[in-house]
């Protein structure tokens, strides 16, 4: 990260006439806002695009939820929806944000990314602004899923829902950043993006206990899942939906979400700063 791009530069004593205009004040926050607004404009203009992201969670809720209720209902301790809906929200977050790097791939193969790199826009802001945008579809889609499930008997703790949506938004910043970092890392072999994304996605999903409880799995699976941040976010969502807001599970969920976000942003910013050659 170059400090010079984040702070207003002092004018050199002998600025040549050709570039005598003073540099505009640069602020990281302003640059991030510019990128964020630009990324959000198409979403806001065409909110229907968010609906496509809802197909998958609704399929799982409609076609997997009843199976779960039938086969594992007894072991889940009561309400299947309180157990499964938070997991589906985490799944939506994971799927939605892990593919977002493909948007950057479009900008890499056209001239959009290059255009931005030639402007004085801060490079870290170009990553952070994009990553923050991920929060909007996550919160919007999750809220819709919760509302859709209310008529089917979902009765979550309202504060727990709000907290879970926020936690997923933070997780999404991290996963989205990692997806952007991946797109930047494989920009010379674009197809690698999908290979890596798919290879990572399904193990992470299955090892989070999203679809079936890990408690019934073998010990090695439980051990591996203990280093999967998504598992803590899923557990946190279940606790929060059930109204158990002060539980250790919720606290660990925040630790995992924030850690993912920090890791994602660090990796993503590094990839962005080096993305010109």
């Amino acid at each position, binding site marked *: 990260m170059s400090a010079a791009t984040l702070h207003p530069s002092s004018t050199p004593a002998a600025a040549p006439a*050709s570039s005598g205009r003073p540099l505009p004040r640069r602020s990281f926050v302003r640059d991030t806002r510019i990128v964020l607004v630009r990324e959000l*404009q198409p979403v806001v203009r065409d909110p229907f695009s968010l609906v496509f992201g809802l197909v998958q969670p609704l399929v799982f809720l409609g076609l997997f939820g009843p199976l779960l209720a039938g086969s594992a209902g007894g072991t889940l301790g009561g309400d299947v929806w309180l157990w499964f809906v938070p997991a589906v929200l985490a799944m939506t977050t994971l799927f939605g944000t892990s593919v977002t790097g493909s948007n950057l791939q479009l900008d890499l193969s056209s001239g959009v990314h290059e255009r*931005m790199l030639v402007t004085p826009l801060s490079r870290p802001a170009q990553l952070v602004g994009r990553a923050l945008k991920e929060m909007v579809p996550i919160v919007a889609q999750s809220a819709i899923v919760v509302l859709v499930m209310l008529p089917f008997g979902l009765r979550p703790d309202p504060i727990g829902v709000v907290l879970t949506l926020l936690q997923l938004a933070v997780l999404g910043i991290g996963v989205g950043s990692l997806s952007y970092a991946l797109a930047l890392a494989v920009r010379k072999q674009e197809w690698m993006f999908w290979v890596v994304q798919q290879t990572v996605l399904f193990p992470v999903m299955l090892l989070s206990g999203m679809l079936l409880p890990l408690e019934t799995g073998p010990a090695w699976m439980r051990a591996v899942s203990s280093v999967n941040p998504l598992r803590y976010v899923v557990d946190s969502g279940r606790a929060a939906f059930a109204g158990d807001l002060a539980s250790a599970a919720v606290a660990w969920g925040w630790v995992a979400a924030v850690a993912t976000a920090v890791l994602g942003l660090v990796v993503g910013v590094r990839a962005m700063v080096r993305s010109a050659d």
Partner: protein
Amino acid sequence: MIRTQALTKDFVVSRTSTVHAVRGISLDVEPGELVAVLGPNGAGKTTTLRMLTTLIPPTSGTAQVAGYDVVDRPDRVRAAIGYVGQGGAGGASQLVRDELVTQGEIYGLDRRAARSRAGELLEALDLTEQAGRKVESLSGGQKRRLDVAVGLVHEPSLLFLDEPSTGLDPHNRANLWDHILRMRTAAAEPMTIVLTTHYLDEADTFAERVIVVDHGQVIADDTADALKAELAGDLVTLRVAPAHATALAAVAERAPGTRSVRVETVTESSGAPVSAVEIRTADGPGGTPGLLRAADAAGLTVSRVDVARPTLDDVFLGLTGRSLRETAVVDTPRGEPAEGGISTSSTDERATTERATDNDTTKKEVLA
């Protein structure tokens, strides 16, 4: 405006192979110049541009752009320059106007000023009707005009254009150039423009200075006219019966201003073989009457005279022994049609294919 010293760029491809894309380019571009960098694909044009626009650091050498070193003060360079890359600058799902407003904000305008600047540019580049449309719905020519508008939002004193008209049809190329030249002179001080191109006529018609690059080095640097006069010269082709060819070649050798003489055998439309004596000379239109009188005096009957002014391709051919056109066709990466691409020994055909989109000022035909 631009000053480079022995600029080089190596790309390490693998442990055993390194591509020397740019091998020591030293350049000076003064404020207000319009410079075309010409060369076959892979010559190092784009790599040089990417160094000058702070996208990639040089391997060695220095470059000052708009008064600042590209490595030490990229922020200063970026604030001063405009850049129109080979790819499109507009995001597919963005609205045309939004992209210009965003670009204005990036350069420090507030939203209101950015909107008004966007309006000016939309008008100037004939995009007002498309302002509310998505970039993906624009035609090729409209997209390219948007790219130029995006590069001009902050009224840069120096504009880089990387193959601005590649992929456009002749009509849209001419239209784009109208806009570029108008924007250039509309600025308070004429904008300095550096463009790369592999369209010869584009460099010839619009650039005040042509820098020819090959294998990562500058091999010629002057006005198009000077390059053509010094490095190629005019081509006078005299047709004569095969029996007289050698004698006519000898006459031509002795004529003032002659640089080289070549004899080719061609077949006329009637089917009869005829010899074409090709004379490279400093002044074709001025020297030809004398040449014809000398031929007459020697009893040689010239049946046809062509005087062709040289093209930049002749310059490149003279410099490297290769045709820029052939090289470009072989190396064209995205399969875009590099127009022409045919090289024949007939002067007539060559002149017409090469200059198909140009007006006829470069070629004068005299029937004897």
